[in-house]
């Protein structure tokens, strides 16, 4: 006990004493000086008293005390100051060395800064996309409710929301029906209170300006369960969500508040219209809050779930709150202390089964959805599917760039280290320890790394503010931005230290291994130094290998983008404008919406500058999809079979304006009306699939498919006659081959049931015609915005956006890699030539031609490059398999990318060694030998 308390005092006293000494260094030095002087004086006085003469006394006193310099050094050591002093000296020395070789310092620091900056940028992006949690207190204990089931038999048939395939024929979704949510919430005892939300796009009129807005419908306990405090006003509460249609309030996002209301506190009490329903703004969310669905961007308007039947009526009854068939709402809850996830999932699973049986018809063949409790700390985390793989690839590539930069600097330092062998030998001869010398070298590396890290932080800052600009598209507002926070800073600092150690370690060990006698005896007069260059050369070969890998990677993605750009979509894409109009169902129920759009089509068609216009259920190459059953007449109905095909509903002018050829039969025309016989057109692929070797014209099919539960053919089936066969087009994206597709005429539809796309062919620029079009629409209904206005080309470009960002990034990595590798090759060859001046002089004196010397040096460089390229190609062949899913139009072992990458590296290797080779060839034998 006693010993422990002594130990404890010491433990506490030492850092305090150390810190005091470091902080008040001047005072400490003065005190030591004064103390020793006082001692000397006391001793002298005593000696004088003992009878010595003052001069003799002083002399004796000084001898007795000994060297004050040594004593002071030991006193400093007692306080633990030696390490600090030595480190400071190392730092000063390293600073002077770096300052002296400015060229090296600038090249090394700049290449490091670029590499670290690239890493910082990619890391901050990856962190933002994949690691950021919802900005609510204790996000870690949020759980998202989801379910899994078999694709063929799960009892859930109508989903509005996410739906994903799992292996082994299973599917998963995080959408629930509202009655299921309500009953789960009542029965739940194993988690904290469950809350519900649904994010979607709607029309909003804000300050008299009709626009599209992202909205989130939230349950009454949403805010209290998430524990979010408003920046202004109040939150949505249980009483707002109590009765359908009664909670006419909204909370808006901080972004909307800043954009539309200039952060004015008078926003409270103002009215905004959502789908033409006025709501009173009662609160503003905090700036960091992005809703429960996503961490990326906040919905702009939050209103109570109770308003759904009024604002966004859905289906037959209008209210989703009582609809047991439609599964659409997302449910979350927090874990309860002491209840494991597995226990909560098991309990909820039992409840879900019972609730599903109680709320909807379950047939004997159906299986019940099984509860799947997921991590909810990042919301629905849909971006994971899109970005996880690309981010991995980018992180690996950017890591290679950093490794390359490290190898480069290690190489340069190693070359300098050999030059400094003499210095090291002298220092060792004077008594420096090996550890001390290695530490000195390491401090030098770390100082260099710190320079690079500081530069990298600056590059990274600009890089990560640049990236959101790359991810924007032309027609949608994006508030996605990357936080440059302490975590990014910590990452950069860690990377910096790691690189410093990585590239500093080899030279440090090499320096500490120097033999005292070696460097002093040897005066670089040896004839050849082949063996010594080995470490440097393998480093260069390693650099070439990494550069090959990065260049080939960039090549693969570049060729993918080129293949995507060369895709023939099957219709004319130029001078084509896309726009969307979403008529709220409350004002425009079935029938009325058809009338509205028919009028709008006519009005837009009559606008000056518009050559042709067609309504369209979906926009092409927009990840959009309409799919329904296509059951040919005379085929026995099998309810387990999938009859689904992609389709579209279009106007009469569609085929002519899109220049999609009619291969047989006729296009839609004025003869196809509501009262005439139902007609359809199929594309060539569908004709081949369903009517092989037959003439499909005149054949009939139905799209009325199964009944609402999908268990039998609808009794009121209506046969549709095929009147034409058209050419194939790409459908939802550029990558997939044209799928089977069929078309129905807009004129024969009875309802739109949501938003409708407009395809507008015009020779005018979008800027010139869009204001006209907006006016045309507003004349029909002032609260009806024209949304998602973009050209077809912009839409296609947006589809290849990810590829373009990828190509931009990987190409710049490839370029950086080439530059670094050429510096490496140049460095090692120049060094080799400088060391072999004697040998070359002798060769030339003995009759070698300059040309032979030139070839000799180039050959040596080429061998190094070839070794690196071979290693790089092997790695590339292996790694390319891992990105197979990201490529289009080429195999991972794409010969064009591989060969051009290899050739490029050979060319760069030759170019980089050209100057040293020329220098070697122009050596004057006399001078070289005199040099000795």
């Amino acid at each position: 006990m006693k010993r422990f308390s002594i130990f404890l005092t010491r433990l506490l006293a030492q850092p305090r004493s150390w810190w005091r000494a470091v902080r008040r260094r001047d005072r400490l030095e003065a005190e030591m000086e004064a103390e020793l002087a006082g001692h000397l004086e006391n001793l002298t006085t005593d000696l004088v008293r003992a009878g010595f003469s003052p001069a003799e006394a002083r002399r004796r006193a000084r001898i007795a005390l000994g060297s004050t310099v040594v004593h002071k050094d030991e006193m400093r050591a007692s306080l633990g100051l030696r390490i600090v002093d030595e480190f400071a000296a190392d730092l000063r020395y390293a600073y002077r060395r770096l300052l002296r070789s400015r060229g090296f310092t600038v090249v090394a620091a700049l290449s490091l800064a670029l590499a670290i900056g690239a890493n910082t940028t990619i890391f901050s992006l990856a962190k933002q996309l994949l690691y950021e949690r919802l900005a609510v207190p204790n996000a870690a204990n949020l759980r998202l409710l989801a379910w899994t089931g078999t694709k063929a038999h799960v009892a859930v048939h109508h989903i509005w929301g996410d739906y994903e395939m799992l292996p082994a024929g299973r599917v998963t979704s995080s959408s629930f029906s509202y009655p299921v949510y309500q009953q789960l919430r009542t029965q739940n005892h194993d988690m904290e209170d469950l809350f519900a939300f649904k994010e979607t796009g709607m029309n909003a009129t804000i300050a008299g300006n009709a626009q599209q807005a992202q909205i989130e419908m939230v349950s009454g306990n949403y805010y209290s369960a998430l524990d979010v405090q408003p920046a202004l006003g109040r939150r949505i509460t249980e009483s707002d969500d109590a009765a359908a249609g009664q909670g006419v309030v909204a909370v808006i996002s901080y972004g909307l508040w800043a954009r539309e209301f200039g952060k004015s506190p008078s926003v409270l009490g103002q009215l905004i219209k959502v789908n033409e329903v006025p709501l009173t703004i009662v609160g503003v969310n905090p700036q960091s809050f992005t809703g429960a669905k996503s961490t990326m961007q906040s919905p702009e308007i939050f209103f109570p779930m109770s308003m759904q039947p009024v604002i966004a009526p859905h289906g037959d009854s209008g209210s989703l709150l009582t609809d047991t068939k439609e599964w659409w709402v997302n449910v979350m809850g927090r874990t309860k202390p002491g209840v494991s996830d597995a226990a909560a999932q098991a309990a909820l699973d039992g409840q879900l089964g019972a609730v599903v049986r109680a709320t909807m018809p379950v047939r004997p063949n159906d299986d019940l959805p099984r509860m799947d409790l997921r991590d909810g700390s990042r919301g629905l985390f849909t971006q994971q599917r899109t970005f996880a793989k690309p981010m991995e690839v980018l992180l690996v590539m950017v890591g290679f760039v950093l490794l390359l930069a490290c190898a480069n600097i290690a190489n340069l330092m190693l070359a300098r280290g050999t030059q400094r062998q003499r210095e090291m030998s002298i220092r060792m001869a004077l008594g420096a320890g090996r550890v001390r010398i290695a530490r000195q070298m390491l401090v030098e590396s770390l100082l260099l790394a710190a320079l690079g890290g500081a530069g990298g932080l600056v590059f990274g800052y600009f890089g990560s503010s640049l990236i959101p600009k790359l991810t924007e598209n032309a027609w949608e507002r994006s508030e996605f931005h990357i936080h440059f926070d302490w975590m990014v800073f910590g990452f950069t600092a860690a990377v910096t230290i790691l690189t410093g150690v990585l590239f500093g370690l080899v030279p440090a060990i090499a320096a500490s291994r120097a033999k005292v006698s070696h460097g002093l005896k040897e005066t670089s007069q040896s004839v050849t130094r082949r063996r010594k260059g080995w470490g440097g050369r393998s480093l260069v070969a390693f650099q070439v290998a990494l550069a090959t890998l990065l260049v080939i990677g960039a090549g693969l993605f570049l060729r993918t983008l080129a293949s995507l750009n060369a895709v023939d979509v099957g219709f004319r894409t130029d001078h084509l404008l896309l726009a969307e109009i979403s008529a709220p169902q409350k004002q425009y129920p079935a029938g009325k919406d058809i009338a509205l759009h028919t009028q709008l089509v006519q009005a837009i068609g009559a606008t000056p500058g518009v050559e042709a216009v067609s309504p369209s259920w979906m926009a092409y190459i927009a990840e959009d999809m309409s799919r329904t059953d296509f059951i040919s007449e005379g085929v026995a109905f099998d309810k387990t079979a999938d009859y689904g095909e992609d389709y579209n509903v279009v106007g009469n002018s569609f085929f002519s304006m899109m220049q999609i050829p009619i291969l047989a039969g006729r296009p839609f025309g004025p003869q196809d009306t509501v009262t005439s016989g139902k007609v359809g057109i199929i594309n060539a692929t569908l004709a081949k699939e369903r009517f092989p070797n037959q003439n499909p014209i005149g054949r009939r099919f139905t799209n009325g498919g199964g009944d609402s539960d999908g268990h039998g053919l609808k009794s009121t089936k209506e046969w549709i006659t095929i009147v034409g066969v058209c050419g194939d087009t790409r459908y939802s994206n550029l990558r997939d081959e044209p799928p089977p597709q069929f078309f129905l005429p807009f004129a024969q539809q009875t309802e739109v049931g949501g938003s409708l796309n407009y395809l507008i062919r015009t020779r005018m620029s979008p800027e010139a015609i869009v204001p006209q079009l907006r006016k045309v629409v507003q004349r029909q209904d002032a609260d009806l915005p024209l949304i998602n206005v973009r050209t077809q080309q912009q839409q296609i470009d947006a589809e290849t956006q990810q590829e373009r960002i990828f190509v931009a990034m990987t190409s710049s990595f490839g370029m950086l890699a080439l530059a670094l590798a050429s510096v490496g090759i140049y460095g090692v060859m120049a060094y080799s030539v400088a060391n072999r001046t004697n040998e070359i002089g002798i060769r030339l004196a003995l009759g070698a031609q300059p040309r032979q010397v030139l070839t000799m040096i180039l050959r040596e460089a080429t061998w190094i490059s070839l070794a690196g390229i071979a290693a790089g190609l092997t790695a590339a062949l292996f790694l390319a398999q891992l990105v197979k899913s990201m490529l289009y139009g080429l195999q991972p072992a794409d010969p064009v990318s591989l060969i051009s990458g290899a050739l490029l590296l050979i060319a760069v290797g030759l170019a980089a060694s050209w100057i040293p080779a020329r220098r070697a060839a122009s050596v004057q034998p006399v001078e070289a030998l005199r040099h000795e």
Partner: protein
Amino acid sequence: MDKQLDLLQGTLDLLILKAVSLGPLHGYGVLLRIQQISGQALVIQQGSLYPALYRLEHQGAIASDWGESENNRKAKFYRLTAAGRMRLDEETEKWNRMAGIMGTILLAVPERA
């Protein structure tokens, strides 16, 4: 000063603690007191005294204040801290035990057969 003993390794700290335990002293005073108590029998390397003082202060066993010396000069006076007192007790006990054991061993005589 007929017979002087060189200091045993590691005993300087103990001597300093003991000297300072009798009252605050400056560095030269510590030296004098040790020599005085030992009857001039111990020689202390004057230079090694200060690193030892600094080490003990660094470890929190002694503390120092600047004050006036007997000849009206500014001097740094060292005094024992509570932790130092504990350490002195402990080391004294350890020393005594060691001395006892050594004494016993050295007194041993060959056993008669």
